């Protein structure tokens, strides 16, 4: 029998080692990257502070918790704003919104970008033409002016602030899918010619399975890298929009609109506690996410290294 002749493959006594998937290997490499790991720690801290911190605060947003426009003190570590609200609490709650906007925008962008990119690369022909023309058009329109117009429209039709943040999330996500779609499409075009895709065809697998189980998982390294970086992009863009008063609008706090509230010379010069904390948060979060993204790129796809 076949087993008898083969000594290399069947060795029942072989110890059972844990299967090392390509992911495990990549994760090990990421763990050795000190810069990326510090970025990860910063992000985890940021999430903890923003999502757990407010429960530990003695103050609440609705009520004035102290005298207005006071600098940092023992009772208000980061001071108070002109309505007498605690800045630390506001920064933490704004962080929830900003981080959430970044994450949801990223997920929207990944869902649209990877699916459309994969469909374009797999079916080619007119499907490809339509999707990629649309992506080209979106890429050629500068994002900021378009978002400013859309933001103004949102203000004009008077969307309530609490629903508005969802619209901002989806808008930001929708603006950033074409770049990812292009990358995914490019990879799928080469992947679909691989022999394992002929194997999938000869086995009679459904298109759905071929695309979502065989092709897209092979593009996940690139998707993860782009997705991570796009969280930073979305947070930054949200801050810009909110600073301009057309993203997340008060009373919902966000880092961008907190800075915007200090948008006059007196606040800027005399009351730095109003704008430094949200500014530092934006800066640290964006830098941390970017170094994680770079670390992931090195760990997942060595070929992408510059």
């Amino acid at each position, binding site marked *: *029998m*076949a*087993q008898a*002749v*083969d000594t*290399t*493959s*069947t*060795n*029942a006594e*072989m110890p*059972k080692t844990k*299967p*090392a*998937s*390509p992911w495990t290997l990549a994760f090990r490499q990421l763990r050795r990257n000190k810069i990326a790991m510090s970025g990860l720690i910063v992000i985890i801290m940021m999430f903890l502070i923003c999502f757990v911190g407010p429960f530990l605060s003695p103050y609440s947003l609705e009520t004035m918790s102290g005298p207005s426009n006071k600098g940092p003190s023992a009772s208000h570590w980061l001071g108070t704003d002109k309505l007498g609200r605690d800045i630390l609490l506001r920064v933490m709650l704004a962080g929830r919104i900003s981080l959430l906007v970044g994450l949801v925008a990223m997920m929207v962008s990944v869902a649209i970008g990877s699916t459309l990119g994969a469909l374009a690369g797999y079916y080619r022909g007119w499907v490809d033409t339509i999707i990629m023309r649309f992506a080209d058009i979106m890429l050629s329109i500068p994002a900021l002016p378009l978002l400013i117009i859309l933001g103004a429209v949102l203000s004009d039709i008077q969307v309530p602030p609490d629903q508005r943040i969802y619209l901002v999330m989806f808008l930001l996500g929708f603006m950033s899918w074409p770049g990812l779609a292009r990358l995914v499409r490019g990879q799928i075009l080469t992947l679909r010619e*691989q*022999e*394992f895709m*002929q*194997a*999938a*065809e*000869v*086995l*009679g*697998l*459904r298109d759905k*399975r071929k695309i979502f*189980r*065989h092709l897209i*998982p*092979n593009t*996940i390294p690139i998707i993860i890298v782009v997705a991570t970086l796009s969280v930073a992009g979305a947070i930054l863009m949200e801050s810009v929009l909110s600073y301009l008063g057309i993203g997340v609008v008060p009373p919902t706090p966000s880092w961008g609109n907190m800075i915007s509230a200090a948008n006059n010379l007196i606040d800027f010069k005399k009351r730095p506690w109003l704008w430094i904390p949200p500014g530092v948060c934006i800066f640290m979060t964006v830098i941390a996410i970017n170094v994680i993204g770079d670390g992931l790129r090195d760990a997942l796809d060595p070929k992408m290294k510059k």
Partner: protein
Amino acid sequence: MTEPLLEVNHLKKYFPIQGGIMQRTVGHVRAVDDITFTLNKGEALGLVGESGCGKSTTGRTILRLLEKTEGTVKFKGTDLHELSRKELRAMRPKMQLVFQDPYSSLNPRINVGTAIGEALVDHGLVSKHEIRDRVKEILSICGLAPYHIDRYPHEFSGGQRQRIGIARALIMNPEFIVADEPVSALDVSIQAQIINLLSDLQEQKNLTYLFISHDLSVVEHLCNRIGVMYLGSMVEMAPREELFARPLHPYTKALLSAIPVPDPTRKSERIVLQGDIPSPANPPSGCKFHTRCPFAKEICKQQVPKYEEMASNHFVACHFAGEF
């Protein structure tokens, strides 16, 4: 007589060559150029020929991984190239392919259990609960261990990967398997194991093989019939013993003479072919082999020799078949 399992009739596959700034079609690579043969159930047909002569293209066009240019391929009486995508998908399990390259033919991100079992589930032939048992069963039939099921392809050697590829084809319970040089990427010691496995499986399951190889000695052990290809055409096809004992085509003779003979009493005059293989985009006129044939005459340059049955079940395409 019962109906043959596979009937290939005047099959042609031309690849367009694009050229110029307009990317117009400036010519064709005649990868498969008018091939006809039948295959009965339980047979193993070996397809041999030099690299680039169109063996893989023949196999893939038969399985309709490539669209034909002309001709018909009938599998159990159904013309595969006439089927809709849906009908073809339903036929897929019955005809499988084993690949040459055990590395690129396995998806690196899919573990062994899924790679082997997913198609049965996708076709709705086996439920998700039963599939692991089926995969384990097939793994041990193919000489692998059940605990390999959760591993990824990169954890296996070339020979083991080839067994995974065979298991993946076999679990579909196919009637017909195209094996496209399944051993040429492997070490010689492993080659014999894989060939033994394929031959055991054929016996147990009454499989029908189209076994592609550039090496006659590999085909010799497994196949009861052998076809020889040159530049996209079949030049000779005969039962194994007949082909080895009485080759009628000069090209077959040259191939046979290149096999090292262990028996020193058997005379072995090595026929060395002169010149390079012509391009299949621009094959020689008349008999495509005339540029390299040691026996070529004037007529060979002008007239295409007919592919005819010279002896029982022995087909050959040469003006002077067996005359030398």
